[in-house]
């Protein structure tokens, strides 16, 4: 399945939104204005946006610790995301989640799990719920190559196969779980090949090519909505930055500098897509105005986040339970 021109421009817009948001976030984090740890999605934009665009607005998603791209890919407003990164009350999680958990519920994200593989059963359960309730919704489940070696991957894919659940399991295979390469941790180096063991369809695509990801994800969504069950998609992608911004890994480099350079110079998903769009007749001025509009949205989001209030320390217990529990029990 291919995108029409409107979808292509929206895809470009969302990819650039992720890139600019992450660049600005990295700058703010390095300058001490964002607390915690910062895992950037730069380099993985085509995988994220290609998969998200195959969904409907009311479809659900689960993600990972590398969580900033997912909501933007699904269409989230940038203001609440940036405010969350700064720990503000106006953040999408009211400052209780932060960088590794940028779950914007308003666009259908039910959780961004910083426990590797932790979101896979949740997505499977969302699929089960959609099937029980007959809603026709699907769930897109993002996870990394490291998560494939968790038991939850095995157990969940077995259940999804058994009950033909409407779930799209999308592995953002960027080749490294922090410093552990896929080659040094996977007995079966093809993630897609693992699907066969569960009786599922497994597809490997170039994760730097948004058309390839969109096509595979759209077919998976069609199968899921049609009652044919889950699909495992392995999108081969690359993270341009370190596992975390500013992380200094001691000893011998775990990935060659030339490899990083190659991806940055030759395999940048936004550069590749922009060239493709121009070659297919899109006007450069259109793309430039998207760039400018995104730049403005990022500046606006930062401004919004910076003037937003931090949570009141008195609200520490808020959102722990659905209704406040007898207050004296806290004091006790």
């Amino acid at each position, binding site marked *: 399945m291919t995108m029409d021109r409107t979808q292509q421009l929206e895809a470009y817009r969302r990819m650039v939104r992720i890139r600019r948001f992450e660049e600005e976030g990295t700058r703010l984090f390095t300058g001490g204005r964002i607390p915690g740890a910062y895992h950037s999605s730069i380099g993985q934009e085509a995988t994220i946006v290609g998969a998200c665009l195959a969904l409907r607005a009311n479809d659900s998603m689960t993600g990972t610790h590398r969580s900033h791209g997912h909501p933007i890919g699904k269409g989230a407003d940038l203001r609440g995301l940036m405010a969350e990164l700064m720990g503000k009350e106006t953040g999408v999680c009211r400052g209780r989640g932060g960088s590794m958990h940028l779950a914007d519920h308003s666009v259908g994200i039910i*959780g961004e799990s910083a426990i590797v593989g932790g979101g896979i059963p949740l997505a499977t359960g969302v699929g089960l719920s959609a099937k029980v309730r007959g809603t026709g919704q699907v769930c897109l489940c993002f996870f990394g190559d490291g998560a494939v070696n968790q038991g939850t991957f095995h157990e969940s894919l077995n259940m999804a196969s058994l009950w033909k659940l409407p779930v799209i399991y999308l592995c953002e295979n960027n080749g490294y779980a922090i410093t552990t390469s896929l080659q040094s941790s996977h007995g079966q180096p093809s993630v897609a090949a693992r699907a066969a063991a569960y009786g599922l369809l497994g597809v490997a695509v170039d994760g730097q090519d948004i058309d390839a990801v969109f096509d595979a994800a759209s077919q998976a969504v069609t199968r899921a909505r049609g009652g044919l069950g889950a699909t495992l998609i392995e999108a081969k992608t690359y993270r341009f930055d370190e596992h975390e911004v500013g992380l200094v890994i001691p000893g011998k480099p775990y990935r060659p500098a030339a490899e990083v350079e190659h991806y940055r110079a030759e395999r940048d998903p936004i550069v590749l897509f922009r060239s493709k769009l121009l070659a297919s007749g899109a006007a450069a001025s259109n793309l430039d105005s998207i760039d400018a509009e995104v730049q403005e949205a990022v500046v606006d989001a930062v401004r919004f986040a910076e003037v937003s209030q931090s949570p009141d320390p008195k609200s520490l217990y808020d959102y722990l339970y659905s209704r406040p529990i007898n207050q004296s029990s806290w004091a006790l």
Partner: protein
Amino acid sequence: MATTRISYLDALVQAQIEEMERDPNVILMGEDIAVYGSGDLVERFGSNRIWPMPISEASFTGVGIGAAISGLRPIVDINIASFMYLASDQIVNQAAKLRYMTGGHVQVPIVFRVCMFYGVSIAAQHSDRPYPQFMNVPGLKILCPTTPADIKGLLKSAVRDDDPVIIFEDSKLWTVKGDVSSDLDALVPIGRADVKRVGTDVTVLAIGGAMRAALEAADALAKEGISVEVVDPRTLKPLDFETIIASVVKTGRLVLVENAHRRVNASSEIAAIICEHAFDSLRKPIIRLTAPDVHVPFSPALENAMYPKCDDVVAAVKRML
């Protein structure tokens, strides 16, 4: 409203069926549930509501949580309490935390049923009473009912609650009979303790299966003219400290009885709270009767001696007077 006299186990099954009939979003998930324990459930509710699970505790727990977030109210039967360790990442890192970590945007209305089997020679890997570990997790609600009316009313409350609730059933109580309301909406509130016997001399607080020993002891002591107040917290998280403190203030003496291991169990916490907030009321030091800090052995000769008995409670109460 009429009552019927039924067992703890039947009350539990009845609550489950009534809640499933009341709300089509309630589903049941767990290993072997289509065959055991709940009688003709698939025929009654259909395979869309009854989900027999493969042996995948770590993930089917999470599947239940995902279903709860997206509109259903699953009852997940984890069966033997010792299996909770396999499922604990999903219970602790997902179910307990998601509402908080999303600033209240996500809710997780799920019930985990776990049964504590012990005292029946099934050895250490099937005999744990692991509620103390989970009491240390914010965001969970933890129930440990001891009567048919309480397990029915509390299970119903749990299904209707918007937070994750763990019900620790106690197999030692399965055969206990009691009057249970026929009112479909008879609920027992979560977070409220119950005074099972009113008394004046000593407070005996008992948890789960230890309630049997406590009540037997109260009966025996009554014959000797000693008035024991028996308190059942029913909910371990959030604990109803008001009721517990009020009883200790009245009697000035507290014996805590439970079958969990001694180190950092529910009694430890309750004793600490009493020392912090009702120390001046204590006329004698608190006594804790618990299982020792050793694994549950297979041999009946070893295991039978592990848990507090009626005689132990009687002796403890007498030491206080």
